[in-house]
């Protein structure tokens, strides 16, 4: 489960980031399309949170459970937190905040991949 979930989420985050950069260059506030993309991302990270927790419970590998789950939870909170901050700032600042949130999701996905992948058991 967890193996491909990073790739899928990184791909979604990448697409949303491109949309955001385009409108950031145009000096526009966050658009509906961004929030739809963010919604898709939110669903994906929630699925990953459940799937990751199940995979962690089943695996025999020596994964650092606390770290892994805390990353999963943080990543699941990021899109909604970014959206709330962005909605309070209807300008390019809001668009920048969404970009920061999406970039943080991508960064955390890479860390999750690390935590899961480096553990051999």
């Amino acid at each position, binding site marked *: 489960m967890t193996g491909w979930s990073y790739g899928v989420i990184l791909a979604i985050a990448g697409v949303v980031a491109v949309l955001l950069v385009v409108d950031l260059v145009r000096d526009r506030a966050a658009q509906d399309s961004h929030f739809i993309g963010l919604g898709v991302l939110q669903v994906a990270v929630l699925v990953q949170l459940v799937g990751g927790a199940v995979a962690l419970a089943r695996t025999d590998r020596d994964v650092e459970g*606390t770290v892994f789950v805390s990353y999963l939870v943080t990543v699941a909170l990021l899109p909604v937190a970014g959206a709330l901050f962005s909605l309070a*700032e209807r300008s390019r600042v809001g668009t920048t905040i969404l970009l920061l949130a999406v970039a943080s999701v991508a960064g955390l996905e890479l860390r999750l991949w690390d935590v899961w992948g480096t553990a051999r058991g």
Partner: protein
Amino acid sequence: MADRTAARGNALAEGWGRALVFVYGLFAVAATGRSAVQLGMEPEKATLAYSLSLVAAVLYLVATTCLLLGGRTGWRVAGIAVTIELLGVLSVGALSYLATDLFPDRTVWSHFGQGYGFLPLVLPFAGLAWLRHTRPGAVAAN
């Protein structure tokens, strides 16, 4: 923002300030989590590095809180916290390259925050620039 003329108390957390609050809040969570895990699991392994993680966490928390509180005191305390943060990331960043034996495990600031996309290095500069922009007197003059 429509209410540019709002009380200076809120000015710290509006406009680009809100983006700063978001990132500082994120780093407060990240650094707190990191130091909690490090100090909770094996505190003896790298006491200096783990203590620094805790210091970083506190600084990020203070900066976030002060930005949200605003006002003259908030501005001043945020300035102190961000300045210490800048000195911290510069000295720890340099030391992590020069004296590797001091840091057997990584901190938020190791290698100038490489593990966090160098944001820990950019953040204090952004914070100081924002505080300069919102310094008492400058808001009224704008």
